[in-house]
């Protein structure tokens, strides 16, 4: 794709070098030619990026347009909103089938619980691994990292047996939350952050007679606010979007997060609705909006901290 304009510049290079055979400037240093080349590259780059953006964003546009149609219109014209074919009825329809408020609440409790466990366990462990000197610290850190390598799917069946069959936590928030409480990424984020703070700061507090718990609560956590926000935001999209685990352990619809309830609707009952795609897309829009809004509001936390630390690590 990108070789075409290059071939074009090659052709021009031949022409311009013929014209310049008497001059001393090499064709590659000719400012006009360089400017032309740069302009071509800019246009090609921009077209490429714009095509990419279309491919990534069109399904979102199509989701919202489809969720507002009275009659599903899969033709090309249906990709544009038609004022005579617009309704909010699909949202009412999906709400009467899934109880959107209840399933959204379930998603929120599940997500909030995971964030709470992640912060409580992760801050303590991250602080210990970064600041405190104790024997076996390196080993503990290696064990934390080990859980990043093993895919969750391997643990799926034993966790199901333990949580559902042994402890009877099916259809409960705790059962949904527990497997996500072991969040190695958050420990990693906090450890990296606390390591970047000068040791003298903690030592000074110790000389003033503060206990480690006081240092953590009054000094380390307040400074770590940006790391905490990063951990919250990066953690949020995990449980909010998660399907497999809550799908396995919730059978009652009143306990299902929205992603699970919507998936069950797609697989089992959608065929009976008047406009099944409209209702499904309305549910999909409600599910997508919170994560997308959070992302747009806190972009830099997704785009910088997360990626940067995972590359350097």
């Amino acid at each position: 794709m990108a070789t075409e304009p290059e071939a074009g510049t090659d052709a021009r290079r031949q022409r311009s070098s013929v014209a310049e055979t008497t001059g001393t400037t090499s064709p590659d240093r000719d400012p006009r030619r360089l400017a032309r080349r740069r302009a071509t590259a800019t246009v090609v780059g921009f077209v490429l990026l714009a095509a990419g953006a279309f491919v990534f964003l069109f399904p979102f546009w199509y989701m919202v347009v489809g969720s507002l149609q009275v009659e599903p219109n899969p033709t090309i014209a249906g990709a544009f909103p038609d004022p005579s074919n617009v309704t909010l009825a699909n949202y009412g329809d999906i709400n009467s089938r899934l109880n959107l408020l209840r399933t959204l609440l379930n998603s929120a409790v599940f997500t909030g619980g995971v964030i709470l466990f992640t912060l409580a366990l992760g801050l303590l462990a991250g602080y210990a691994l970064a600041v405190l000197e104790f024997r076996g610290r390196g080993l503990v850190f290696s064990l934390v990292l080990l859980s990043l390598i093993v895919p969750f799917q391997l643990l799926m069946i034993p966790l199901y047996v333990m949580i559902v069959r042994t402890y009877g936590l099916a259809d409960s928030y705790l059962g949904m939350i527990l497997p996500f409480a072991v969040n190695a990424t958050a420990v990693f984020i906090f450890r990296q952050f606390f390591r970047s703070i000068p040791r003298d700061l903690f030592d000074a507090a110790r000389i003033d007679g503060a206990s480690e718990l006081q240092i953590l609560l009054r000094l380390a956590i307040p400074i770590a606010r940006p790391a905490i926000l990063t951990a919250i935001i990066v953690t949020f999209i995990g449980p909010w979007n998660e399907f497999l685990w809550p799908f396995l352990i919730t059978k009652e619809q009143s306990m299902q997060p929205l992603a699970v309830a919507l998936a069950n609707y797609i697989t089992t009952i959608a065929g009976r609705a008047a406009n099944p795609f409209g209702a499904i897309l309305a549910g999909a829009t409600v599910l997508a909006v919170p994560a997308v809004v959070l992302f747009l509001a806190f972009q830099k936390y997704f785009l910088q901290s997360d990626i940067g630390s995972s590359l350097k690590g």
Partner: protein
Amino acid sequence: MAGIPEATTRPQTAGPGHRTPLTQRMFGTQPIGYVFAGPYFIFWLALFAFPLGFALWMSLHDWFFAAPGAQVDRPFVGLDNYTSVIGDPDVRRAALNVVIFIAINVPLTVVVSMVLAYALNQALPLRTFFRAAYYVPYVTASVAMIAVWLWLFARDGLVNQVLGPVAPDPSWLVNRVWAMPIIALFATWKQLGFYVLLYLAAMQNVPEELYEAAKVDGAGVVRRFLAVTVPGVRSATTLVVILATIVGANFFTEPYLLTGGGGPNGASVSPVLLMYREGIEQGDAGYGAAIGVLLAVVVMTLSAINQFILEDRER
């Protein structure tokens, strides 16, 4: 710390009072670290280490679900679960599907995300907008995105309307040939933004002088991309290949929802879908766990090989 005090205490080194206290030598200077790291470690033991061992143990036993409270015999069966997994035609189909998935997903991800990251790394208008646009599918729930793809690729869906007579029959998601490529395409599309940003971060670490030097030598944009950028981001490529392989081996939601449970007729079944069906729906947990162990071993071996091949070339 060792320097100054030593001179004054030297005559008494044998005395016990001047050595590091025993507790300190055993546990370090701040043993409170155990208390701080303890809660996480307990969760790690209960929700990671124990289930990991339990998975291995189960896979070596005839472990099935029984009525609550019933005393049942779950005899040790050695590698029986593994031999029946390997001989199972469904598992073989799932393994083939993982190969198809990875063969589409990994090269497509590496090439497209590298090219888009390279374009994003130039001084072009609307860069911030593009960067965000690519990431949006990555932060959105698979279930929501699959809902849209179901509509796009339905029999009378927009894709077939655009294609007209070229549209495949049977349609994409119920077509034995096309079901897997569509799943791989969906997963690539959904994850791509993450990899674009990973490459973008890596490209910002490629020294500017290399580009300048290439420019002086008369290299054009494409030349500079191939000669400077591609080798410059090799460690990111290793990471991308490994992560994309892991994702490729563990897909579940796509065949469950997009192709209606691994259809048509098992053509898009995945190992994790089989684990769910056999291990949880059918209650044969030992069998399901054996699939899981084999899958994890294969993925880790592939990752190690990838790392070896891709990193080795660097030297």
